[in-house]
């Protein structure tokens, strides 16, 4: 797929709806991802974030509406289709195996090989260790030893490893599903820094989260989802963090709750 430079948007969902039987998971949602921007998808639980990711990742096809990649309408048949077009999704489980080493995880399923004696095709472990260390260093993560088990890494480091892996294998678009959900403050900051680093490399990012405080510092534009509908897309210049917070389901509820508890708002 040669990228079409004429299209301003690398991914577009136009008025997309998705129904599961009688359940309306998404209705008339429009999301447009500009090249090289970090686009935050915000929404509370049940807002339709997961369905949207799965459409973007090729797991689901929209019931209505169009999905365009580089301005061309596409019908992704599978996650592999999405990967072939450079759309990589990093799910919350990260697809890492804790008992395996960093290098083995990095290349899991896509191992580099070398030929020995013309017949044997062996896993090139030296190359795997070298590349994985280099790519992680590139992202600002120092790996103690590429042979160390992923189980010994912190949650933030694992997230960064999964992101670095996706970028190495040719992602033009990164879809990150709640990458900071289970992380502490420092580790979240690390992951946000990696997202920013990815943007510097020209990679477009869709960052799914329910935490405005994580989305706002790194995001260029924000799409708010609530109960399967989009509440609009805003550039960072157009909207303040507190407006975003108020628009999200939960923002209002939290204010009410604080009023109930007698906290001065």
């Amino acid at each position: 797929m040669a990228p079409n430079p004429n299209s301003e948007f690398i991914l577009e969902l136009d008025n997309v709806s998705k129904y599961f039987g009688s359940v309306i998971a998404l209705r008339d949602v429009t999301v447009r991802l500009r090249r090289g921007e970090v686009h935050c998808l915000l929404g509370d639980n049940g807002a339709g974030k997961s369905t949207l990711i799965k459409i973007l990742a090729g797991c689901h096809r929209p019931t209505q509406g169009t999905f365009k990649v580089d301005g061309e309408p596409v019908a992704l048949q599978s996650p592999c289709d999405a990967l072939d077009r450079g759309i990589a999704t990093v799910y919350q489980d990260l697809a890492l195996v804790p008992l395996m080493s960093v290098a083995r995880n990095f290349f899991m399923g896509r191992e580099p090989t070398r030929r020995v004696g013309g017949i044997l095709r062996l896993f090139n472990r030296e190359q795997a260790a070298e590349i994985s260390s280099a790519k992680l260093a590139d992202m600002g993560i120092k790996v103690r030893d590429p042979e160390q088990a992923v189980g010994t890494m912190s949650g933030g480091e694992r997230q960064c490893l999964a992101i670095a892996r996706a970028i190495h294998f040719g992602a033009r678009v990164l879809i990150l599903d709640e990458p900071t959900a289970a992380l502490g403050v420092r580790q979240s900051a690390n992951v946000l820094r990696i997202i920013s680093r990815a943007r510097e490399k020209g990679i477009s990012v869709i960052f799914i989260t329910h935490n405005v405080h994580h989305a706002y510092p790194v995001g260029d534009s924000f799409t708010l989802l609530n109960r399967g509908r989009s509440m609009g897309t805003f550039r960072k210049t157009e909207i303040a963090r507190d407006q975003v917070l108020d628009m999200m389901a939960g923002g209002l509820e939290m204010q009410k709750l604080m009023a109930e508890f007698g906290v001065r708002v």
Partner: protein
Amino acid sequence: METQPNPRPPGSSGPQSATADADRPPETNGGPPAPRIVEPPPGAPPPQPAADERVRTLSTFHRVMGRPESASIAGAVLVFVVFALSAGDSGMFALDGVMNWSTVSAYLGIVATGACLLMIAGEFDLSLGSMIGFTGMMAAIPPLFFGWPVWLSMILALACALLIGWVNGTLVVKTGLPSFIVTLGFLFILRGLTLALSIIFANRTIVSGIGDLAAQDPVVRFLFSGTFANELFTWAGKHGWIATLDDGRPLVRGIPKVILWWAFIAIASSYRLTHTRFGNWIFAVGGDPNAAKNVGVPVRRVKVSLFMFTALCAWLFAMLQICDVGSAAADRGLQKEFEAIIAAVIGGTLLTGGYGSVVGATFGALIFGVVQIGITYTNVNSDWFRVFLGGMLLVAVLFNNQVRKRVTEAR
């Protein structure tokens, strides 16, 4: 990798923090408080990761002990030392004694290799022992009762073994049922079939004479019968370097072929596990099948092919055994599935999958053979063998548990 602590003094100014402090509800949606990104000035080089101050260099001892096979190697050394001290002068370490226990180890080592790879991939095959009896009978009855050539019946037995391995594996991966239950079913099915079919076709449960038939078939004889490097041993016997019989022939005629097969299977499998893509897939499939699937590892194909490989190991065991013993019996391979699992576990393979090594299983099998045979060279009653075995298994499992904790829970 260290982040800036980013302290925010109370009452700090700036549009973001001023509003954020006033309006941020406590624990928005349960998420952690906002981290701030310190954006580097444009054009600045990316910050170089600093050396991690929270890493200490582990001693070589710690690193060596972190490998799956190290415990079994240490165990093997210990076992050798114990028997060298208690039975060193009994002939256990003379050439015939060595062949004795290494043959026992070799038989077990072949099936332990298959069981080990399958366990690393996260599955068991409890039908392995019954498979030994079944394939042995399948290879022995047609030549003895229907006049088939031995090689043909052996190939038929192999095809049957692979088919049953495929069925086992496919049932497990398609239904998602635990392999424990599925293969437990086949443990009984195959054992029962072996008994029933041998009664139907041969009207007995032990059929003898297959060893002689096998020895007449050049290919089968070359592969499975007798010993290897006989000339070397004869030559050494003539020079008086090894013990000989009264007529001048060496006491040990050569290396039993099962030992060569063991070496071949173990080396090839170990290499396969650690040095190939497929090996990486075995670890991945056992470590986290879901993650493996998501990155494109053909999880089902890996598991099914390992079930088939385990069946192949059982078949090889049976072929070597019927050629060596000269007969097939319906109760052959009894409890071998457990012995194979024990060898793999002593070798450091985790019962839960994702971790282990063929080298470990090889040493596990070696320990097994040395103790089983060695105990007859000592004054200790051989009834104690199983007690020792069970104890060894428990120690190994406890040790492996520690290893797993260290690998998965260290931060």
